[in-house]
């Protein structure tokens, strides 16, 4: 067992996977010699050579499109999009091709690709280095979407994603790369070395897709979160003293609705968190599902705390980010409701 940052865990997942299956290839912008702008692929080219890990031209449609062709051949590409904000030029290939080829060909051709991309704000990245586009993947059927919140899960979920026979979008909350983030940007940074989920086996293991984790059991209210917001949820629970059950969704599609339903039916209250813009965000789907399945158990309106419906601003980043204060306020309101 080693202590790893999330970056190291992601690296390790790819390293181990490539060692087990030589159909796995890694490519993307700057991922080869340099090892990626966040260094998540460092060492892979050195170990497995430039045929297995190489730099791509700056063309996201090309990256996904080529990966689809490779998957049709039988490879298992794991590609990096440098920031989730830059997946849009590849969105046609992702949502209309990768997601549809099994269906179109009655299972004859398949698209076992993993598309890794850093997501979320918190690093003063402005509107094009901070986005959380998970809802755009959830809405178009045929894609799985995974968002880890800690190094242990990151490695296990990435290994599972690479092994999965369907296209998987693997969103990496960049604010969590180096340490858990309690939502207070003005407090000292903590590192994964001091966090239990920073303990990561060096060998192969998987964390199954489609299963949520109960990060904090609680009785009074259920908080649904993923990625960075899991940590904000924990902070808010602690700060408000409200006994919240924090569910880390981990995979948003397929979703572990069973765990959610069980919890909300018990607590009768629910708060949903995400960093993405509110309108039509994944929170809307979660709220709908909870409303549909738990209506008669609800003691208060379900609440959402999300990014505002504006671009992610640069200087006002912390006014945009749905931090512990806003989450705490929502918790209190839901408790009163």
């Amino acid at each position, binding site marked *: 067992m080693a202590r790893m940052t999330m970056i190291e865990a992601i690296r390790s997942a790819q390293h181990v996977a490539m060692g087990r299956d030589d159909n796995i*290839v890694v490519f993307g912008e700057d991922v080869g010699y340099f090892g990626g702008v966040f260094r998540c692929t460092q060492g892979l080219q050195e170990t497995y050579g430039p*045929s*297995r890990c190489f730099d*791509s*031209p700056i*063309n996201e*449609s*090309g990256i996904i*499109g*080529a*990966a*689809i*062709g*490779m998957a*049709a*051949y*039988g*490879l298992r590409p794991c590609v990096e999009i440098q920031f989730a904000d830059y997946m849009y*030029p590849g969105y*046609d*290939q992702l949502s*209309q*091709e990768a997601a*549809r*080829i*099994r*269906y*179109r*060909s*009655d*299972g*004859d*051709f*398949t698209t076992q690709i993993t598309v890794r991309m850093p997501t979320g704000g918190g690093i003063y990245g402005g509107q094009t280095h901070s986005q959380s586009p998970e809802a755009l993947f959830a809405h178009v*059927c*045929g894609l*799985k979407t995974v968002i880890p919140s800690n190094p242990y899960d990151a490695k296990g979920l990435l290994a599972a994603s690479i092994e999965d*026979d*369907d296209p998987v979008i693997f969103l990496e909350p960049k604010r969590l790369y180096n340490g858990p983030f309690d939502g207070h940007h003005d407090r000292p940074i903590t590192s994964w070395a001091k966090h239990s989920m920073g303990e990561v086996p060096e060998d192969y293991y998987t964390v199954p897709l*489609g299963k949520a984790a109960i990060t904090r059991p609680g009785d009074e209210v259920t908080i649904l979160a993923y990625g960075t917001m899991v940590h904000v949820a924990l902070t808010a629970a602690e700060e408000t003293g409200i006994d919240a059950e924090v569910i880390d969704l981990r995979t948003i*599609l*397929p*979703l572990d*609705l*069973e765990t959610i339903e069980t919890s909300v039916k018990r607590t009768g209250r629910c708060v949903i968190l995400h960093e993405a813009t509110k309108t039509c965000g994944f929170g809307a789907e979660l709220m709908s599902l909870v409303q549909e399945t738990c209506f008669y158990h609800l003691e208060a309106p379900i609440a959402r705390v999300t990014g505002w419906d504006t671009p992610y601003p640069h200087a006002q980043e912390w006014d945009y980010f749905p931090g512990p204060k806003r989450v705490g306020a929502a918790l209190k309101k839901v408790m009163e409701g």
Partner: protein
Amino acid sequence: MTKPLKFYVPEPEFRPGDQPDFSGLKLPEAGAVARPKVNVKAENIRDLAYTIIRVMTREGEAVGDWAGALSDDEALVGLKNMIKVRAYDKRMQMAQRQGKTSFYVQCLGEEAIACAFQQALEKGDMNFPTYRQQGLLLSSGYPVLDMMNQVYSNSEDPLRGRQLPIMYSSKEYGFFSISGNLATQFIQAVGWAMASAIKGDTKIAAGWIGDGSTAESDFHSAMVFASTYRAPVVLNIVNNQWAISTFQGIARGGAATFAARGHGFGIPALRVDGNDFLAVYAVSKWAIERARKGYGPTLIEHVTYRAGAHSTSDDPAVYRPRKESEEWPLGDPIERLKTYLIKKGAWSEERHTQAEAEIEAEIVALQKEAEKNGTLASGQKPSPREMFEDVFKETPPHLRKQRQEAGL
């Protein structure tokens, strides 16, 4: 004083009401273009992007460097494949008119391209086609009955009714699932070819795209990736002069030819008479060999003419002269190959008439058989349950729930 700028919009030479006249079109003589070695450097054959490689003379003789690639028997196979494609198109087009399916796309006048190319491929190579390359499938031995079942979306439809009629797919026959979204397949072909190289395989890929679709961005993705990784892929542009109602000049812009697009990527580019079966075969074979030997990608512009409507959804008489097709100077690919074979003594008018009749009868018989499985309008259909399958490998809980809700 600077003069005001003017906005320029290219226009086709002829519109309905005009008398089409292609006498201005410079066509090189058959045999005029030399055949370079397959390992030639792109920069040494730039001229091949600005000419047209032709093998058959008007009289039906095969001349020049590019001649002689096919035996008479092989050419006859090609001729019969083209006849089959045309007969198939005719029947399916008619079936659509009769309401037996929703939609159909012919390749009338373009049969030589896909048929000759497929004949030059080897088993295990993979095409990434558009909706106008039925000739690839029909020449590869894929069962016509299966194609018909799909056109009818009936109970035996190999794609379970999920896809549009003509959007075939077959891994076994080297035919990648057709997409409705133009050009996406071009870069996918390059990715497949890269994979083949990564694995040290000997198989090559072929991408297909229409003249209009070269304007799409994935044309660029494909060119960039093919160029950078020297992928073993043949990139085919079928320039049939039209993109629905839009003439090729809108996509081509100020370039002299589509083939010229290759030059900016150091990819060798050849232009070929797409209605000359022998020329298409020879050029395809050259490019395929080049790819397989590790010399990298080739761009081929097949010059042809879309003799029919774009699809069953449009009437070309609204946007181009009715006679344009007849006036188009490259002639009919079937007629041309027939003339060649007759001239060589390998074929005759009588055998041709007989072959056409036989093939048509075969197609009609298969059609009857297919219709026993139903058509879109009547009879058996794929189960609605199929709608929920293959979205994912295993149906996840939310889809199982929806399937239940649908009562299926």
